[in-house]
């Protein structure tokens, strides 16, 4: 089969994109605002995390105050806890943005 025939036949294999392909793409390209619709589950998770972030330190602080060793009983666990929460939030945010 000669080159010219193959080339002509291959042209018939060309697929066409859907009608709104370019429009959808250009919306994303031109950076029109994309609204992130966080699921209820995610909202609850974030809300719970914030609550914990506020309540737990208060409890910790109160406990730490009983023996005066704030560094061990409060600051170190608190910093670790906050780091974990921030890390989780950032991963969640990244996962939402790639959807």
């Amino acid at each position, binding site marked *: *089969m*000669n080159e010219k*025939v*193959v*080339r*002509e*036949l*291959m*042209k*018939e*294999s*060309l*697929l*066409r*994109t*859907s009608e709104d*392909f*370019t429009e*959808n*793409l*250009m919306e*994303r*390209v*031109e950076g029109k605002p994309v609204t992130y619709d966080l699921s209820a589950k995610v909202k609850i998770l974030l809300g719970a995390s914030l609550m914990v972030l506020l309540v737990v330190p208060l409890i910790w602080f109160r406990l730490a105050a009983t023996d005066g060793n704030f560094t061990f009983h409060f600051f170190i666990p608190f910093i670790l806890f906050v780091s974990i929460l921030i890390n989780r939030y950032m991963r969640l945010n990244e996962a939402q943005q790639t959807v």
Partner: protein
Amino acid sequence: MTEETDLLKRIIQGETKLFRILVEKYKDISLTVAYSLLKDKEEAEDVVQDSFLKAFRELPRFQFQSTFKSWLYRIVVNTSYHALEKRKIRRSYIIDERIESGVPSSETGYGRVLGNERKSAIRQVLSNMKTNEALVIQLYYLGEQSLNEIVEITGMSLSNVKVTLHRGRKNFGDQLRNLMGQELDDLL
């Protein structure tokens, strides 16, 4: 400076609306190339969308050492391979579903969509060919890529590309002849 180089520079400088021209020019071939790997039109279209977006974001880093077309096709192929990796397990489930439902796999491809007998035959042949062979002959004939450009896009060696192209062209011809018979001989 070619027209396309000028266009690319204007897009990089901020005239983002001009990107549409490149999209219109290369979207169909990109879709066909992605389909040769993914065998699913919807997924191929998603991959092509993602590929164009990646190309747009990376445009400031484009060195103009290759053509935009080659660079884009490389992104399409890499993104398609990435998508293939992700859905390896799901793919076998889809094939199983097809077998269970009794629908021949060729009818779930785009052969059914068009209804034109010759086009259906061509696409059926391409669907049944080895992925690398279908990819290389589409890049060469449809994408009008040189052998060296295909090396850049696929990561295959030059000798491998030549052999794959030769085999792909032969298999394409043989399988099409089996399907089309006299009609193909009339073309030749």
